[in-house]
């Protein structure tokens, strides 16, 4: 940073109609400005996907500038307005992971604003020059090494509340009764529910196809799996019309699957179960502490828990305190925290496999032409993979936290999911998995959407 010869490398992704024309005008007008920006021209800011921005950082850019038409001026009517929401969420995600906000900037520059373009470039260049070269590259080489970052002392805070299990036996009977009826009448060819696992205190997904088999269905505070993941799995759906046991959070996933046209409402029977919360390490799971779907938002049959005690939620979500603690750190400290987390990633993709909303036939992480996600399981590849996973879930994640539960490396994916869910709730008044008839937040826009970060 003390090197006077150092010049930042900044990649600018611009739309061809406004900003590129503005930059062109700056050139033909012979306006002098900082020469550190390399321009990549795209048809519309709506085409400037977060993957492009990631690639620029991956390959060593010290900063990235994104610029398009002013709202209302888009050549394709609303490309920039849709992009604005994506940029908002993506920017906040990267800042949460420890990127300095100055390194990823946005502007609206019209074809006539040659002067504004040069001012933006000068200002962005000055800020990035002041920051110096991006530390440690994209992802620190920290595999299997311990770092002594302050952030490392942030330990997982499990829920402190005790479980109030309710009347599990009665609920279990209720589930069996409805399951038996569905199988006997032929309304369902298979019931997807919970059975006893092979180890103590473990349940397992169970597929029951005969009425006699319903006695194997169980209900207790260890029914953690989100079974809705099986509704898009052919080995299960081939057994016939599906009847599925769904907690509130599972039903939210069903809502999201309906919303995204992955399942048909009249081809699934939902056995909703009132749920008082699930256990993790003998305590109420963190995500259950602020549950507002003890009664599922969507069901065909409801199994009530007569002793359901939803308690008071004054304590709030323990993860919100962790998120606040992380956000109080400096970007460098947050970066160190997440690098230490992601260094443990072994790319087993269990997070992807258990996610009801990760239903893509071929995941982008498995694509090689082009190779969007670096395939090496190193700091760089792991960082990009975790960003791609998180961003793809933004505005879609229903917060079941199955990904965090199954991660063998205990990476705090739940904090990332929660952070994005809070952001989207606050910015767009949207929470995933409650209403299948509204448009998901990143597929729509409002003229008054947040834009305070755009120059």
């Amino acid at each position, binding site marked *: 940073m003390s090197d006077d010869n150092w010049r930042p490398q900044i990649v600018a992704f611009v739309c061809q109609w406004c900003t590129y024309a503005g930059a062109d005008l700056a050139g033909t007008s012979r306006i002098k400005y900082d020469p550190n920006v390399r321009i990549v021209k795209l048809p519309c800011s709506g085409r400037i996907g977060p993957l492009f921005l990631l690639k620029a950082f991956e390959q060593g850019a010290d900063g990235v500038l994104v610029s398009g038409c002013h709202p209302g001026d888009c050549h394709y009517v609303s490309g920039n307005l849709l992009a604005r929401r994506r940029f908002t969420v993506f920017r906040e995600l990267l800042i949460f992971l420890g990127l300095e906000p100055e390194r990823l900037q946005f502007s609206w520059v019209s074809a006539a604003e040659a002067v504004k373009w040069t001012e933006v470039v000068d200002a962005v260049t000055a800020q990035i020059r002041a920051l110096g070269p991006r530390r440690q590259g994209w992802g620190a080489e920290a595999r299997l090494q311990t770092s002594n970052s302050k952030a490392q002392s942030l330990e997982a805070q499990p829920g402190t509340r005790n479980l109030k299990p309710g009347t599990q036996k009665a609920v279990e009977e209720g589930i069996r009764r409805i399951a038996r009826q569905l199988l006997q009448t032929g309304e369902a060819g298979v019931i997807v529910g919970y059975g006893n696992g*092979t*180890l103590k205190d473990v349940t397992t997904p169970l597929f029951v196809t005969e009425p006699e088999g319903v006695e194997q269905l169980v209900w207790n505070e260890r029914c953690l799996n989100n079974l809705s993941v099986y509704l898009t799995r052919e080995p299960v759906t081939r057994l016939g019309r599906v009847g599925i046991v769904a907690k509130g959070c599972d039903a939210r996933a069903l809502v999201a699957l309906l919303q995204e046209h992955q399942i048909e409402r009249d081809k699934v029977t939902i056995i909703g179960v009132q749920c008082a919360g699930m256990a993790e390490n003998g305590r109420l799971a963190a995500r259950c502490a602020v549950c507002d779907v003890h009664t599922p938002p969507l069901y065909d049959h409801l199994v009530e828990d007569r002793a359901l005690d939803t308690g008071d939620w004054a304590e709030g979500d323990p993860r919100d305190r962790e998120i606040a603690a992380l956000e109080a750190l400096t970007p460098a400290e947050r970066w160190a925290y997440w690098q230490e987390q992601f260094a443990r990633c072994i790319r087993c993709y269990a997070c992807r*496999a258990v996610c009801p909303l990760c239903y893509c036939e071929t995941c982008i992480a498995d694509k090689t032409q082009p190779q969007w996600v670096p395939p090496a399981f190193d700091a760089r*590849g792991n960082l990009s993979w975790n960003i791609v996973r998180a961003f793809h879930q933004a505005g879609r994640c229903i917060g079941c936290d199955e990904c965090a539960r199954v991660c063998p490396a205990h990476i705090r994916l739940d904090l990332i999911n929660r952070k994005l869910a809070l952001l989207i709730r606050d910015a767009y008044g949207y929470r995933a998995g409650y209403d299948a008839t509204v448009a998901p937040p990143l597929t729509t826009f409002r003229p008054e959407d947040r834009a305070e970060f755009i120059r």
Partner: protein
Amino acid sequence: MMACRMLRPEKLEEWLAELLRSERRLIAPQRQGEDVVFQPVQTVDDITLDYINTRWPVKAWFFPPSEPVLRYRYQGSGVELEQPNMALEPRVIFGVRPCDAAGLAILDQVFNSDGEDEFYTRRRTMTTIVGLSCTHPAASCFCTSVGLSPTASAGSDLLLTPMGDAGYLVETLTARGEQLLWEYGHYFAAGECRSKEAVTEAAEARMSRQAALAQGIELSERLFEHPIWAEVARKCLGCGVCAYVCPTCHCFDIVDDSDAWGGVRCRNWDSCGFSLFTRHASGHNPRPQQDSRYRQRVLHKFSYFPQRWGRLMCVGCGRCVTNCPVNMDIYATAQAVLQVQGVKHET
């Protein structure tokens, strides 16, 4: 080579402290959040002996999840190659459980089957494994079912077995182990060769999973095509956890991580549970669904590998059972398949 020594409990820490000061790099179990993992030791106080087993098997220290095998840069019309840095200091890994050590013995066979794998073998020859017998197996453990035991010595260079107040019985199993013992002989009391049988029996008595799986699965067309595979694999979601926590799984993929200027060719762990594992360039996939993939996993461990190498490719550590998101249980599956095959087994 079967000379026995004893290591007094109070001498263990002294010995580890001296190892830490030596030119060898000491790697030992340490706390990481709620887990215990193998890490290079900074101070002896960080080492813990309070673990049933480590979160990850020790295999990653020999066969890392992702390993650069060469780097390349485009230069004009040619390509400039760079070999990876293979320099490695001698290492001691302390506290390896017998199941994980046995996993190394299996990997030794694989990585030296047709030619020597220089990446793996170099790390093996530079590393001395100090095994630590297991006295309190977990509910998911089943090493005795696959022909091992909580005090088995395969794969270790030295094996310590806790013998109560008397300290640790030290078995010297290889020349590398002998070398280490010779260098630090003053910590080890020469004594009569006490039998570890009582310790073994006590540990085995604590194991709830004891089925006879060691004979492996005898493959037949009927068994291969049997509907049991679709049944047991129906809940499998196709992630790679089971393979990646397994001490013996060793499949890898060679991929180029590249950009416009060059790249790294790396060897990444791979898993037969992934659909990509067998997908052809044409798009055809000979293992189209999870049933055939999971069958491959089970049969590789219990049939194909034993046919070729004369031993199972499962050491009964139970990690795949406890880490599976949906409670796929290879112990239960092997029993069920043997039942289909018509073999009687005790539970």
